[in-house]
Structure formats: C-alpha cells, structure tokens
C-alpha cells in the first residue's frame, strides 16, 4: 500500500476519541438514532472544555485493533451513524453549542443493509442539516474523508486538516480504478487536489497542522478553539450564508467557459 495511505490507516493514527478526551474534560456521550440502532464508528456527545466552552463533538474513527475495526466497520459510517449525528445536531441547536467533527473514514459503507436503510437519504439529510446549522461548526480531517458521508461533516464554517490527511470525492483506490490501472494508487493521490496542501492552496481548507507537531493533541485543541471563538457571536443566518459562500467561492475557481 502507498506509504501515505498506510500512515492514515494505521492502528496508532491519532483518532477522534483521543482528541475528544483531551478537548472535553467533561463529556456526555450520546448513542443511537432511536430508530435503527447505534453506530460504533461514531463518537458523539457534548461537554465542556477546560475553559468551560460548551461543545458538541462528532468523531469518526476506524478503530485501533482488529476487534474495534470490526465493531466500527473500519470507520465506514452506516445509516444509524448518520441518523445519530442528525439527532445530535438537533440537540446542539437547542442548547446553542458549536459543533466539532473529527474524521478518519473511508468512503461510504458499501453493503446491502446500508442501501435498504436509505444511505442516500441519510447522507443528503446530514449535508443539508450541516449546511443549515444555526451554530458554528468546524471539521477536522485527522486522516481520510471521502465521498458524500465525509462531505456532510465537512459542510462547515471552518476546515482543519492534518498535513498528511486527504479529502476527496472518492478514495485514491477508486480514482485509480477509473483509470483502469494506467496510474498507481500513489499517483492517483496527486492527480486530483485531495491533499491538505492542495486544498489549502485552493482555499477550501483554513488551517493545516503538521501531524508531527510535538504535542499534536494540544496543538489541535488550541487551533479548534482559536477558530471557534470568533464564530461564536456570528448570527445564525450569517453562519449559514458563510458556509455557502465558502463553497461557492471554491466552485467559482472553475471557469464558466
């Protein structure tokens, strides 16, 4: 496997639960969508930072050992995961808590069950709800985030990426596949703008953090709060407009003719 991908998918990769634990000394986990079930890949809940800032978190990780990876479906979120996230968003609007999403997930879950549960509608609902969220939201790419599922969480006011993380329409493997083996998976990573550096240069990403930073978790926590604080007084309509303007400006880089 490509060295970069190996690092992102490694068992000891910095994971959402680790960041959440450091970020929120008091944390109330929320579980289940109340209809279909729970998704172990999602760590959701709310709590307070050391400085007493209330926060909602939505973390997705692949699991740190074989057993966890099985339970968490390798980080491929299922419909109960999206629906739980939607429930948590309703909760966060009630209490006016900003939202921080932390991602390391492959593309969508490819299974008959996810199809029967309405994966399409769940993803569409999450993208729409995140876009219309009346409190500030920030997404942090700790590893990979591909396809519509990651996009839902990334429909955010601010985007942070670790310098070696990836955000794309599909996994590098899927990009290589449409080229029928003419390019390796490693080459595919550089065929489309999916690295933190490429997306920062194009204005989609606000902050890039070195994954080798000596105290990465503390650095990350500080950066999240620094980005969040100026957003706290922003009115709901402006937060919604700001998200759309960000993605619209990104699209405008693509000329009309």
């Amino acid at each position, binding site marked *: 496997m490509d060295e970069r991908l190996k690092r992102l998918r490694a068992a000891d990769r910095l994971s959402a639960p680790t960041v959440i634990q450091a970020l929120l000394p008091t944390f109330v986990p929320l579980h289940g969508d109340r209809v279909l079930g729970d998704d172990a890949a999602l760590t959701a809940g709310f709590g307070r930072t050391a400085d007493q800032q209330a926060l909602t978190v939505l973390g997705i990780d692949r699991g740190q050992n074989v057993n966890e990876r099985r339970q968490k479906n390798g980080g491929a979120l299922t419909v109960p995961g999206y629906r739980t996230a939607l429930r948590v968003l309703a909760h966060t609007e009630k209490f006016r808590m900003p939202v921080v999403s932390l991602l390391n997930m492959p593309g969508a879950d490819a299974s008959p069950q996810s199809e029967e549960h309405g994966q399409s509608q769940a993803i569409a609902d999450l993208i729409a709800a995140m876009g219309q969220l009346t409190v500030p939201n920030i997404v942090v790419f700790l590893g990979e985030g591909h396809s519509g599922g990651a996009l839902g969480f990334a429909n955010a006011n601010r985007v942070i990426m670790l310098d070696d993380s990836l955000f794309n329409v599909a996994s590098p493997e899927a990009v290589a596949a449409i*080229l029928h083996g003419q*390019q390796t998976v490693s080459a595919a990573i550089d065929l489309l703008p999916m690295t933190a550096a490429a997306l920062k240069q194009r204005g989609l990403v606000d902050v890039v953090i070195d994954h080798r930073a000596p105290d990465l978790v503390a650095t990350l926590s500080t950066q999240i709060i620094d980005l969040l604080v100026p957003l706290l007084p922003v009115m709901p309509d402006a937060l919604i407009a700001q998200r759309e303007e960000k993605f619209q400006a990104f699209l405008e880089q693509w000329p009309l003719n």
Partner: protein
Amino acid sequence: MSHYPATGQWTTCRVCGRHVHARQWGTWRQCPYCQAWQRLTAKQRIDQLVDADSFEPLPVVARSQNQLAFPGYATKLAQATEKTGLTEAVVAGWATIQTWPVMLIVMDSHFMMGTLNTTVSRRIMAALKQARQRQVPVIMVTASGGARMQEGIYALVGMNLILAEMARLAAVPVPVISVLTDPTMGGVSASFAFKADVVLAEAGAKIGFAGPRVIQQTMPVDLPADFQSAASLYENGAVDAVIARPELRDQLGDILASYRFQGVSTHG
C-alpha cells in the same frame, strides 16, 4: 423483419442483449423481448412529459472543461458531446405539463453516465433559483451514476451548494416533484434526488447509493434480483409511488392539479 429499414435502426437491449429495431421500441422505448425500459435521452424524456412545443430551455450558463487536467477527461467530454449532442448531462427549462407551468430539470445518463460535475451543479442551481423566483413548481428527473470523479472535490461540493439552494426553495410553498429514473445513484441520490415534496420512482429504475458491483467488491454477497429496484424502494417506504413510463405524464399532471399552485401571494 426485412420490412424494417436496415441502417442505424437496430440497437441492443441493455438488459437482455437482443437486437431491437427502432419501431419495436415503440413510443415508450420498451424492449419487446424482456419488457425492460430503455434509458431515455433528455430529449426523449422531455418529449414524453411536456405539452407539445412547450419546452423552452434555459440559456446555458456553464460549459465543462478539464480544469484539473485529469487524464483522459477532455476526450471523454468530447466523446459525450459528440454522442449526445448535449453540452452536459442535464437539460433544464420551462415547460407546461397538462397546461401546468413547470421548471423541468432532466438528467441524461448517456452523457458520462449523467454524473454530477461543476457544470451540472451550476445548471441545476440556476434552474432551482429561477423556479423559486418565478414561483413555478419544479420537476426533477434524475439519471446519474453519482459525482464525476474527474472533477474531484469540485464535483462533490456541488452537492452542498445544490442542497443550500434547495433549502431556500423548501422555505416557500412551491411544489418540488422528483422522478427517479434509471440509474439514480451516488452523489445525486445522496443530495437532491430525494429532497422533494413528492418522490416518484420510474418502474424498472435502479436507485441507491453504492452500486451492486461496488458492494460485491467489498463483500461476497448474493444480491436479490430486485435489489435497489423502484419496487423494493417503495416497499421500504423510500418513495411515494412507482410509476410506469406511459403513466408518468398523467401522474405528474394529477399531482400538479392537486397542488393547484398559483404562486405565493406577496405583500409589498
């Protein structure tokens, strides 16, 4: 069959593989052997749905190009244009259906499998915006394999932007009707396809997120014949009705007549 003109009139049924003559397909483009519905071009779809000569296309607001220099994409775009006579995988315009004015958005799977890219997103957003401004009901006929990989993250963010436009549309009582046709997958089904007031599925259509091939690459599983079929979506409660192609126009007319939408009264 010697009485059929010989050249350019025979096509292969995508489902049963038999050669079918243009006249055998008939008005509704149904295979005489296996009864499968052939995928329609945007033009065929529009002709089947709207009152004669009522379709007025919106001016083309964007054209596609290989902005990211993705290998082979420029050629694919040129071939798709050549094959379909379209400049992209969606056509939108004003029309009437049984005299009811509508904004009609029709995707065409013959253009790079109807994939969603920057241009398709822009055209859909423009159509939705104009429908909202003029207060005209929207009919979206989807046919797409999902987001267009060759445009990378730019194709993906179109989903955010279309849903933002749909949120504004949802805030006014302008009816939005979705018709999911074969295939409606990936980034289209996971963005605007189901975000309608009434969601219809055309009989025979396959609708889902991940296609059967992707699922079977991930896990060795036997998928039932009706997997992701319009009928199974109806059974699962995902769509309001399954409509056979010949009834679609009348069904849309009935829905429009039931809304009897005549614009929202505004004050000042």
